[in-house]
């Protein structure tokens, strides 16, 4: 035991007012984030015989079904790309967004036992859930790469846009999840509203259809859905090109910033009451 450094001082008082983000503390507990995310990922692959195959199969099957129903039967336009590629490029980033929302949104309630028995910044719980969703996304990207190679599509320099879009999606999804997961502790209504919200949001976003389906005069309003910019951005990054893509990303960037910062502040403000409400 070292005596030279003075021991840290922990002050415990009733929480009043805004408490700030206390980023230093989050950094101090970074190992918890890594361990929790690693646990989620391990658990996902440990008890399933097919393991990674499920992660590949899920978006692939969904993509194929959409391709048959919307591309073949309904004949939805796909901006000149093969419909499978078109829908898969949108579905990929949508799955990342919805996956984070699903996992992180319920994460606090799922970890109730932990929250009532040990202290660490609770913010790490939804973040770890998001990290686990990111791993699934990486696997689906691999599937996308195979599909692109199969069709001989090479996006070129547009690919540089991919990490930007991914980061924006993650920021937006985590921001929303922070709000939802914290509110879910107090009002379990959110647990039931979430799947519904995700479903509606998907059809309100150009996942299975292209922007050209939307009448010109509504497009401005439509673009206020930050997922529009994100999905269009992801398509541009993976399939190459598109018009006015960068301006499309403005709304998602703004939305992600606002939601993430406000969500983090709100979460840090209320996280100390979680153990009392779970």
């Amino acid at each position: 035991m070292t005596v030279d450094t003075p021991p840290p001082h922990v002050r415990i008082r009733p929480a009043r007012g805004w408490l700030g983000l206390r980023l230093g503390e989050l950094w101090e507990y970074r190992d918890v984030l890594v361990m929790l995310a690693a646990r989620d990922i391990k658990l996902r692959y440990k008890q399933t015989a097919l393991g990674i195959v499920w992660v590949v199969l899920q978006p692939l099957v969904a993509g194929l079904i959409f391709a048959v129903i919307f591309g073949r039967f309904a004949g939805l336009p796909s901006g000149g790309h093969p419909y499978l590629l078109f829908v898969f490029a949108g579905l990929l980033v949508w799955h990342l967004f919805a996956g984070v929302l699903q996992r992180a949104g319920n994460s606090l309630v799922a970890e109730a036992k932990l929250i009532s028995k040990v202290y660490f910044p609770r913010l790490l719980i939804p973040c770890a859930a998001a990290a686990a969703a990111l791993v699934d996304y990486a696997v689906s990207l691999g599937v996308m790469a195979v599909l692109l190679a199969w069709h001989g599509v090479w996006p070129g320099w547009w690919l540089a846009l991919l990490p930007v879009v991914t980061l924006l999606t993650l920021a937006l999804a985590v921001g929303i999840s922070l709000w939802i997961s914290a509110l879910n502790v107090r009002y379990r209504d959110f647990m039931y509203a979430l799947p519904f919200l995700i479903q509606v949001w998907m059809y309100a976003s150009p996942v299975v259809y292209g922007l050209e389906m939307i009448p010109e005069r509504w497009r401005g309003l439509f673009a206020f859905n930050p997922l529009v910019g994100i999905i269009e951005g992801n398509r541009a990054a993976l399939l190459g090109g598109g018009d006015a893509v960068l301006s499309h990303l403005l709304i998602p960037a703004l939305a992600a910033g606002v939601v993430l910062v406000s969500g983090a502040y709100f979460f840090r403000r209320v996280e100390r009451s979680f153990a009392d409400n779970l």
Partner: protein
Amino acid sequence: MNETSIRVEQVGKRYRLGRTQTARYRTLREELLQLPRRLLASFGSGAEPADEFWALRDVSFEVKRGEVLGVIGRNGAGKSTLLKILSRIVDPTSGGADLYGRIGSLLEVGTGFHPELTGRENIYLSGAMLGMSRREVNARLDEIVAFAEVEKFLDTACKHYSSGMYLRLGFAVAAHLNTEILLVDEVLAVGDAAFQRKCVGKMAEAADGGRTVLFVSHNLGAVGSLCSRVLWLDQGRLRRDGPGREVIEAYLSDVTSGAGGVVTAAAPAGPAWITSACLTDRGGLPRQAFSMTELLRVECEYQVEQPGGFTLSLQVKEFDFSPVVHCTSGDAGFAVPGAAGRHRLAAEVPGLQLYPGRYWLRLALTHTATGVQHELDGIGFQVEQDFALCSRPLPRQAGLFYRAATWAMLPPPSP
């Protein structure tokens, strides 16, 4: 070595009754419906609403570095709430606390363990949550594994562990935390005797190393032997703060004088637990004072979660925690009912002829297959002089058991 390690000032915690029991969370609809009433209430006299209670109120104390402080009290006295506040799991409603040093808290053995993960993975996970970096865990991995005696099963999923191994591993991680302050809640309620000895030994070691330990337990023997100073919490308030023996003694006489002498325990996780126990006379009426020759009858109620074989043992202890009498159901060839559900048992011990004074009884229910034990401690009773047996005063320092010897005169020694 005289610096303050923990300072607690006027700390209080208020709960809403409805929310601590069945429905802790609310739905939006409820909240909206209650809004008018709540608004009205806030304009009222400011009287405390009936559905609120203080789990802890105006508790203040200070702990010096290297001190081992025991916290005792009945169920619901606020012991766990105090520890949860100090571990930053819940916020106090009023007052506050200052802790100087890194805090390690063990409110449950195996915090953060996941049954699907291997022992090794769980060590790292639990270690991280308790505040150990990966490097620290690496440095202490061998020690932890040796303490837990799980070397061979380190890479086996924890769901295959026996409950004893699980407990040992859980405690081992926390015990090897290198924090200046250690907060420990009721870890001795489960686990076999060997495990309990190990835990107590480890905590004593921590204290010798200059760490501050706050120890909550129903096991008064362990508290008495480990803690030089004890806090007694009663209905959320600090009833007494002083030297260990003194406080425990006061607590025991209080526990047995009220509530008809019935002692109850919180339900821990385990195969079975004793829910309540009570000393009675021959006819089954609760009693706390017995004459030296009188039969001692104990009634207890227990709950079985995992059906199986069990043994019940009872132990009479002296006030300095040294054991006096120990008997088990196994010795008597009695099969303790082990089907799932609640059971009641009575045990009768013939007149022990103990010297007059205060004693206490400890019951332990042991799951035969795993050795996991649940104990109910601190059932105090008074032994009173039986003047028919002996008319002179019997001072305790003279002996423990009274026996009338037979005396005989022998022929004088031959010259």
